[in-house]
Structures are given as C-alpha cells and as structure tokens.
C-alpha cells in the first residue's frame, strides 16, 4: 500500500466522492441545509484538490470544522440520539474525512462506508423507487473500489478507463445478483427483533400521533404517501364502513385530546366471528409508532399485537418496516352494552372553565331533548344548516376553541368538527370519545386492494348510547358528505389544481399497484412468507437451523455455478480470425508440431511445413494471418478468406494418406 502518496490522482478520488455523495444524497436532503452544504463543500474541495494538487489542510482547521459541524448537528437535532441524527453524524464524519482523504486506505474506507450509508437510508424509506438508489449507490461504490485498485496496480492512465470501470462495475453488480437473490430468499429471518428499539430512536414523525389538538392532522393531508393497503377477500366494504380505527382519545384538557390508559383485552375477550365479517390483509407502511389499523371490530389479533378495551390495536414494537398482517373484522357487535361508571366519568369529563358559549348551548339542548339520539340528530342538523365549511385553510383557535369554532370561525376540517362536537356532547352529559384513524381509501380495481393514503387521516366521534353501546358519529360527514363518500382528495379544493390531472392520477395509481407488489414480495418477505415459500416448494415447516442449512446448501450450489462461470477458461477470443488461428495451432499441435512460445508464426509454419502434406498451404495461411494481425490489412474479405482457409486446413503427416 502506498502509504505516503500525498497526491492521489483524480480518477479514484472522483469515484469515491461520487459514491459518497450519491449514497448520502437522501440523508443530505433530510439534514439542515447548512450541514449538508458543509458536507458538499468539503467533497467539492477534495475534488478540486485532486485536480490542482493541493495539500491537506492543517490539523487544527480540520478538527475545528468537524467539531463545529457536530455541535451544529447536535443543536439542530436536539442531541445526537435518533436515527436521523446518527446518520447525519455519519455523513458529517465522512464529510470531515474528505479533508484528509489522502491515502488509499482512506479512499477505501469512504467507499465502503458509503455502502453502509445506502443501507441506513432504508431505515427511513423502502419505497420501490429506492431500488434505483440502491443499485446506483452500490454501483458507484464498487466502481470507486475498482478505480482505487486500478490506481494501486499502477495502471490508472489507460485511455477510456472511466467507462471501462463503469462497465466492469456493472458487470460485478450483475454477477452478484444470483448469489444475492439466493441469500435473500433463504437467509433465516428473525420473527422477533434481537433487541428492542427505544422510542427516542424514532424521530421521523409520520402518520398519526397519539394526541389530537385541532390542526394537527393538517400536515398529514399534504402527505400523499400511502399509509397502508388492504387486500379484501371479496369486495371492499362500502365507503361508509371504511373507518380504520387508530388511537382512541378520552382525555381532553381544553386544548388537546389524549389517550386514556385502559386495560388490554385478553384474546378470549374478543368479538366473536359473525356472518358479515370482512377478511383482509393489511400491508402497513412503517410509521414508527405502534398503531395497527383495522376495521371495527377485530375478531382476530395479529401476532405480537394487543388490543385495548376500546379496540385499539397496538404492536409490541414500533412499526419500522413494512408489516403485513391478516385481519378479520365483524362490524355488527355492540361495543359495551353496559358502560361502567368509571368509564362514564372518564368520557364526560371536561375542563369547566372553557367554552362557556358551547356549554350554554349544550345545556339548553339538554333541557329541550330528553333523548340522546334526538339531541345528536339535532346537533348534526344544526351543522348541516348553519354555514359551516370544510376547509384545510384554518386559523389557529384560542383558549375557548370550541366556542370560537362553533360560533365564529365555522371553517375547519375533521379534527375541528370532531373536537367541537365531542365538547357539545360532553357538556350535554353524553359519554363521548374521539377516535382518530383513517377513513376511506382508493379502490385499486386492477390490484383488488384498497389504498389508504396518509391524506385519508380522519377524526370522528363515538358516543355511548343506551342499547347500542359506543356508536360512531361523524360530524364531518354532516358538513361534507363527499369527504366520506369519495375520499379526502375530492374536497381538497384548489390545493392540487395544477397537478390534479386525470392521467396523472391514473399514473400514480398504476405506480402504486407496482409498489403494492413490491411491498408484498420484496419488503414483506418475512419469516412467515419464507415458510410459505418453503411449503410451496414441498418442504414442511422448517426450524431456523433447518433454514440455515438450506441456505448453506443453496448458497453452495449457486456459488459453484457462479464459480464455474467465472473460472471456466474462455472459449476463445471474440475475434474470429484469432479463433481460427488458435484452432489451427491446436490441430497442428496435436500432430506433435506445436508452436514453441519463442517462435514467430511464420518461423513455426516454415519449420513444420516439410513434415506435413500440404505444408506450403500452411505457410501461405500463416502468411495471411501475419498480414491481418501484424500488417495493416483489415479488409473483411481477407479476414473471411483466412478463416475459411484455416478452417479447411487438415494437417496430414507425410506418408499417411487417407483413402
């Protein structure tokens, strides 16, 4: 290793930096622009330094720069915990490494850590598009390693070498795919994670949160990414039934709705199966929280999940990777025919000093309607008749937020309606809770699955009624029925008018179908699917050790095949002239007249000619070969004449004639 070579040539440095920048690009985009700018400047500086042969900067500058960058990172992420902060730190370290990238060892380090960066990106996003990122990142790193090796072997100045490096790298990547595929299919998966993930590590805030204050879902509306997909056996449920239950919120402090910590249900305490059950597979995108979404009311429990008293499904671990589970829901049962007194208290509690106008209205309604159902119907009618508007453009509400919304602003979206409606109900002493989750979804008719996007997030209310238990009431439906019937995108007026074209939507839905298959077959390939594949191949249930053995065996087989392909002697040159010449040499050589390495072709032909019948012909053919190979005669006719003549020549020793 050339340890003290101060000036590395441009090629390996440029490839290494390309590998690093490419692998780091998604991380850099997620970082504060100041920091990613710093990293990019460092990389650009190194590239210029390679061309202009600058020396490495003094140590104190490097240390100062790196330290200040790390401090900046810690400030902007509020510490060095969390995956974003950790990968950001890794990017910064590699950026700092750019300033002292002056040895072959450093280049190799950066190129291989780039591979690591590619892997860490998938902790944040595993969408179909990222397969391109994966391939590009690995390709660039392999090319960088090739360029570094080429430099070490001292032949970096070959003409057109960059393109050759790229081609060689692509070849290596292609050749790696069979072995990688076998490993992917047979590597034993963990049914349980090795170690738990502390919740602080989860810092990418996507999806529903476990609290709700009016306005918090608004960000989700702008997020068109899929939240989950559900594949139904039989048709999809009608739009009015597509309420996917998420966190159920009981406690309201005047600003924010929060969960109550209710006991879990035991598996025996679940709803019995019915006749109108929905049976479906959910393919949940990672959202870093524990919610699992299901239709009301789950009959079965997914693995590693529990269900609370209010039918809220939670996984034991945060959902950090695509998760698939099979569900069966019975929409018919009555949730809690009897309401325990503690829960009634919990479901009617309100801060007394808030929303006096709402309180007044609720109390007057209470005195007018003895029946809860009539009261609710009246309030919904009131929503319908008064000028309430559904809009995502909202203004922040103050201390008496229900008052302001119901009597002054009257413009908002589901959270505002759900929260204000729940406040009216509680003032009217009707047990009420707020449910957040998703509502609706797009039915992919080609793929037979329901696509639920993050923008389908919704909030509604459940009231407890004598005789029907907890009953869903959706005040938003009263104001904006099409929100419920046709989905969130139908009421987002003007928001996407520039891009909201039919063909574009169609394209997006088609893409999602691919994404769905990708999720089902690549991302969702887990221990269970692996077992299913083995069963499909005719192998019974296999333990982890058995799986490891199968992996070793199939890996052995595929490596043997690959090794055979690599190590097999090339069948000959691609040049037909050369091939014909080598065949001729072999044929004559079999007669014991092999060409010695020291002989020129013509010298050999002249030496062996006397021993062969038609030896003159051999000399002639060899002369032709000399002309083509060493002369400047490149005509196609001459080449063809040579290959034909060489192919037709049969060396017969003098004296043995065939009759």
């Amino acid at each position, binding site marked *: 290793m050339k340890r003290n070579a101060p000036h590395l040539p441009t090629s390996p440095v440029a490839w290494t930096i390309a590998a690093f920048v490419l692998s780091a690009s998604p991380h850099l985009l997620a970082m504060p622009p100041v920091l990613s700018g710093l990293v990019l400047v460092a990389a650009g500086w190194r590239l210029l330094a390679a061309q202009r042969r600058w020396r490495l900067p003094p140590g104190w500058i490097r240390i100062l720069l790196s330290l200040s960058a790390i401090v900046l990172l810690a400030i902007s992420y509020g510490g060095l915990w969390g995956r974003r902060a950790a990968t950001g730190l890794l990017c910064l370290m590699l950026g700092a490494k750019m300033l002292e990238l002056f040895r072959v060892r450093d280049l190799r380090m950066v190129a291989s850590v780039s591979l690591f960066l590619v892997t860490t990106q998938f*902790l944040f996003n595993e969408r179909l598009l990222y397969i391109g990122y994966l391939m590009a990142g690995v390709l660039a790193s392999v090319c960088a390693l090739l360029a570094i090796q080429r430099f070490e072997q001292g032949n970096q100045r070959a003409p057109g070498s960059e393109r050759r490096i790229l081609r060689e790298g692509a070849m290596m990547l292609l050749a790696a795919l069979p072995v990688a595929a076998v490993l992917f299919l047979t590597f034993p998966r*963990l049914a349980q994670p090795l170690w738990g993930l502390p919740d602080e590590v989860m810092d990418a805030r996507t999806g529903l949160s476990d609290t709700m204050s009016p306005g918090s879902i608004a960000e989700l509306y702008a997020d068109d990414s899929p939240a989950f997909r559900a594949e139904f056996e039989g048709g999809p449920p009608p739009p009015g039934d597509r309420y996917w239950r998420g966190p159920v919120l009981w406690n309201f402090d005047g600003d924010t709705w929060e969960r109550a910590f209710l006991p879990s249900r035991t598996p025996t305490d679940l709803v019995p199966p019915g006749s109108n059950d929905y049976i479906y597979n959910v393919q949940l995108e990672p959202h870093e929280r524990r919610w699992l979404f299901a239709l009301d009311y789950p009959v079965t429990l997914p693995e590693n999940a529990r269900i609370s008293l209010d039918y809220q499904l939670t996984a034991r671990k945060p959902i950090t990777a695509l998760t698939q589970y099979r569900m069966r829901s019975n929409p018919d049962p009555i949730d809690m025919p009897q309401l325990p007194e503690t829960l009634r208290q919990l479901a009617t509690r309100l801060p007394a000093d808030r929303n006096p106008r709402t309180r007044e209205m609720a109390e007057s309604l209470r005195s007018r309607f003895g029946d809860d159902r009539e009261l609710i119907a009246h309030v919904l009618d009131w929503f319908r008749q008064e000028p309430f508007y559904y809009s995502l453009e909202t203004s922040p509400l103050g201390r008496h937020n229900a008052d302001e919304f119901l009597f002054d602003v009257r413009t908002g979206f589901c959270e505002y309606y759900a929260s204000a409606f729940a406040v009216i109900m509680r003032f009217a002493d009707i047990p009420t809770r707020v449910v957040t989750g998703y509502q609706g979804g797009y039915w992919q008719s080609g793929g037979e699955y329901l696509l639920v996007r993050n923008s389908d997030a919704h909030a509604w209310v459940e009231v407890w009624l004598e005789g029907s238990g907890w009953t869903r009431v959706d005040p938003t439906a009263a104001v904006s029925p099409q929100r419920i019937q046709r989905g969130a995108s139908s009421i987002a007026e003007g928001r996407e008018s520039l891009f909201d074209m039919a063909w574009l939507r169609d394209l997006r839905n088609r893409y999602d179908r691919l994404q769905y298959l990708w999720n089902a077959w690549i991302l969702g390939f887990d221990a269970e699917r692996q077992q299913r594949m083995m069963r499909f191949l005719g192998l019974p249930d296999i333990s982890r050790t058995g799986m490891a053995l199968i992996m070793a065996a199939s890996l052995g087989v595929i490596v043997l095949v690959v090794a055979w392909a690599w190590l097999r002697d090339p069948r000959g040159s691609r040049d037909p002239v050369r091939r014909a010449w080598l065949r001729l040499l072999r044929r004559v050589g079999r007669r014991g007249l092999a060409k010695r390495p020291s002989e020129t072709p013509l010298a050999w032909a002249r030496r062996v000619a006397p021993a062969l019948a038609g030896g003159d012909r051999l000399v002639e053919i060899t002369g032709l070969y000399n002309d083509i190979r060493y002369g400047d005669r490149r005509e196609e006719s001459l080449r063809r004449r040579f290959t034909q003549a060489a192919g037709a020549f049969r060396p017969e020793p003098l004296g043995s004639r065939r009759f």
Partner: protein
Amino acid sequence: MAAIPGARASERARRPRLFERWLQRRTRLDLPLTLAYRQIFILPTRFGWLLAILMGAMLIGSLNFNNNLGLLTTFIVAATSINTMLLSFRTLRGLVIRRGGAVPVHAGQAIDYRLAVDNPVERPRSGLVLRAGDARNVFSVAPRGSREVRLRLTPRARGWHKPGRLRIETTHPLGLFCAWSWFEPRAPVLVWPAPAADPPSLPEQGEAQLGGRRSPREEGEEFHSLRRWREGDPLHRIAWKASQRHQTLLSREFRRERSRHVTLDLSLAPGRDLEERIRILTAWVLRADADGREWTLKAGERALGPARGEAHRHACLRALAET
C-alpha cells in the same frame, strides 16, 4: 548456499514447524510451475476484514429492523465479495512461471532477478505482484502473452544464492482478498564478491607490490587517445586535422602496450583476512580487465588463465565467489 536475507528469514523462523511442513507438502516449489488449486492460498486483506465487519453491522441492523432492502444491499455486497474472491483466485490460476534467473552482480549490488511468466488463456491478468520480502513489482500479462518480471533482490554475501521463497500475489479486482502462491526457484543466482573500495595497484611481474606504489606511466608506441595540448608536447604529437575540427590544439597520446601479463594470487594478495583478500583480488581482476591486460588467477588449487576478456573475467569472478 544461503537464502537471500530479503526472504524474511525471521518470519519463517517464527512460523510453527508443522505449518512449514504442511506448506512444503502443499506447495510445489520448483520451476516451471503452473499455479493450480493446490498452490493458491487466499485470505481476506485487512480491508476485506473491515468490509466484513461493516457487512456484519449492516446485516444485524437490517435483520433487527426487519428491513428487507437493507438486507438486499448487504447481500449484494456480500455476493460481490464472494465474486471478487473467485476473481482473485482466477487471476492466479493457470499462470505459468517458466523460469527465473539473474545476471550475476557484485555483493552489495541489487540483483535484477527476472522471472518468465506465461498466461496460457485468452484473458488478461492484471494486478499481479511479485514479491520477496520488501521487494515488489506489480505487473500484468496480456491474453496468451508472456512477459519477464523483474525483482530487485539485495544479497549481502558472495556465492551462489537461492532466490529464496518468492511470492506471487494479487488483490485484483477490489482489494478485498489476497490470493497468493509461493515458489522457490531452484536455479541459484551467482553473486560475485564486492571489489575492494581502494585496492592497491596490480602486482606487476607476478609479484604483489605492497604499499601501493604507482608505476610511472610510460609512453609506448600504441596510440591511446587525443587530449588537449599542453605546454611541452612535441610538435609531431599534435594532431593537426583533429585540432582544426575542434578549433583547439589537440595532441596525440601514446601509451605502452598494456598486455603485460599479471598473475593474481589469492594467497599473495594483501589483506587482513580471506574476505578482504578476495575483495582486493576482485578489484584487481576488474582493473586488469579494464586495462585490457592478460592475467592469471590463482585461488587455492585453481588457476585460471592466462587469458583476457569478458569470459575470463566472468570465470575468475565466479571462482572468487565460490572460494
């Protein structure tokens, strides 16, 4: 016959004897040698281990997060590494090392060891490294090509030397694995003794002249060279035509014919010990040859000459090296 110290004698001594014997059995050491499965060893390089550790981290992280794309990346990298292992092996496999040898040099000078290497297949081989100790040479061989690889070895003592165990290795194509083969060419290399730095002048008339008294230069009849005219040169010595050409006065210099025979006897040479006497004798041989004289070398019972010229010099130096 000694091994060249460059071949890391100390390292070999450290290696357990059992391993050494296994190695002996496993390696065919003499030339010509075609590198095959049994002769090729392969291990990850330091960078290879580093990448392995990195891949382990990637694997465990991806498994724990149940992250299939992360796993896929890890597996692609692992598969690439497996491929490079095969490619490193392929770079060596089938390579033919035909013969090695070197032109003799004096002790202390570098041996320019040459190894003839053939590539019998239609595939280029690049990134090959020939090494012995710290000496290394990077080379590549064209498809169906042959080439001569040179290696600088530095012997310290005179005599016949085995080049020792040489190593041909490659980390092609990514530097993850190092494949190598050992071989020990049997053909030894001759190292002449080093000439003494400041030898006494030649022992004229067959007698060693001690004390280094220089014999005065006498003029002879043989034309020797042209030199710049000096005051006192007789007129008939001036080379007029040449002077005109060079625009300055040149005179012809004549010297006595230098073929006077000299006998160089090891036992009569000055010097404290045998080695010093051999060095002085070596210097004398070189001097006598440079002066174009005829000489006889007596070393022990052997007597070479009288003769002159390159062949005689080589014979004498070889005799001195072997003494």
